[in-house]
């Protein structure tokens, strides 16, 4: 999950900007720290060789420099930030080879549901994508806020009930990655990690075909069962009954998830606690 080991163009650009910015700042920060320590050491009261200059309390030249150094750095970084936020906007397209794959992600309490509307399948806590293709994510939440994040593919984005956020990514190399929720969402939050399998574009149709053969069907009823609070340890896969399921969730035609059971209204509630364990 190393951010400095990107597996896609978005993450590569993000982490390059990250490293660049650090180095731009280090150019001034290192000399400044050095100067602090050096001045502090040299002008110690016990050093007879240091010249005491109590009158040195103002210098127009020094002030110019002192305002200019951080200002110039900020102008440089500000430029990087401006260009970066436009080019790396989560919704900006990320061209790839082959057909883009549309994935609709729903954060549930406390698991991730990935819907492939065009393939008519859905998976929980595992995301399988072809290498090299553009991945168009649409994201929403069944209840509380979460953040969808695959560190090695870059750019996280919030998921919220009743709203649809957009994120475009691309995975370049086959392999196993991990994703997680980066916004605290309740007792089962740490279990909201999911596997990301990047497979070859040739193997992807096969995976879709084999997944579509599963007996489990995802429809409104099953979804409502799935969105009850609890932690999913397995990696279930589903056939998608209605490709518009995501729209029903996002438009709140399926009402938001219920939250903890109200039996424990007063005092410390333990619901979810036993699930998480």
């Amino acid at each position, binding site marked *: 999950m190393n951010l400095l080991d990107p597996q896609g163009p978005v993450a590569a650009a993000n982490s390059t900007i990250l490293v660049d910015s650090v180095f731009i700042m280090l150019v001034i920060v290192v000399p400044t720290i050095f100067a602090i320590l050096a001045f502090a050491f040299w002008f110690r009261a016990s050093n007879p060789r240091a010249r005491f200059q*109590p*009158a040195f*309390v*103002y210098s127009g030249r020094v002030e110019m420099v002192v305002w200019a150094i951080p200002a110039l750095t900020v102008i440089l970084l500000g430029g990087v930030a401006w260009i970066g936020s436009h080019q790396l906007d989560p919704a900006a397209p990320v061209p790839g080879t082959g057909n883009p794959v549309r994935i609709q992600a729903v954060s549930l309490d406390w698991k991730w549901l990935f819907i492939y509307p065009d393939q008519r399948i859905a998976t929980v806590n595992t995301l399988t994508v072809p290498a090299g293709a553009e991945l168009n994510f649409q994201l929403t939440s069944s209840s509380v806020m979460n953040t969808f994040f695959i560190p090695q593919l870059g750019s996280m984005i919030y998921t919220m009930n009743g709203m649809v956020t957009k994120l475009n990514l691309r995975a370049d190399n086959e392999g196993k990655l991990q994703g997680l929720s980066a916004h605290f969402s309740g007792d089962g939050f740490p279990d909201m990690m999911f596997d990301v399998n990047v497979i070859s574009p040739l193997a992807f149709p096969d995976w879709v075909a084999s997944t579509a053969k599963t007996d489990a069907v995802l429809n409104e009823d099953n979804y409502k069962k799935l969105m009850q609070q609890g932690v999913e340890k397995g990696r279930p896969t589903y056939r998608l009954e209605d490709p518009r399921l995501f729209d029903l969730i996002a438009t709140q035609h399926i009402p938001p998830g219920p939250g903890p059971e109200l039996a424990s209204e007063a005092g410390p509630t333990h619901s979810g606690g036993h699930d998480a364990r």
Partner: protein
Amino acid sequence: MTMTATAGHAHADPHHIGVVIEHPGPAPKRIVTAYGFWIFLLSDIVMFSCFFAAYAVLVGQTADGPKGSEIFEQGNVAIETVCLLLSSFTCGMASIAADVRNRFWFYLGMAVTCVLGLIFLVLEFREFADLIVRGYGPSRSAFLTAFFSLVGCHGLHVSAGVLWLLTMTAQVFAKGFRADILRRMMCFALFWHALDIIWVAVFSVVYLLGSGT
């Protein structure tokens, strides 16, 4: 201690500012009190601005409930506005009376202010009660939530103002125009006028802008 002698000369005027007018010292109590209250009013206005911002963001979220134009009554609002305006005027008269220590005009001014404030509150209460009875309470939609909170927050301030007015008039009755009570009267006048200013924003943004289109 050797430094003291040199320092005096070295730092006499390093920035070469030239003429300096000496600060005269701590301000009198009346200014301090009123200024502190002024700062409080500004913070209160910032608080109102959050409710205004919430209203601006949520005004379209009617959740298939009523829109503003369907529930606002211009006539009612106009009467409320005139009440508050007149009460601002009478409050000003009362503070002048307090400054010249004229009890009769002070009581009269405060009484009229109080009555006008109460009329305003009754009208607002009737409007709210009517909406709730019709099923358009604050839980109906985010728009109504924002509406009730913003207007209600102003109403709460007016209620607090009336309570303050009564308490302070009682104090004048019991203690006369003492300096600290006059300071409080000044703060009260500031408060009451500020509420009127907020009401200007409320009737313009909520009722008038909301009732069009």
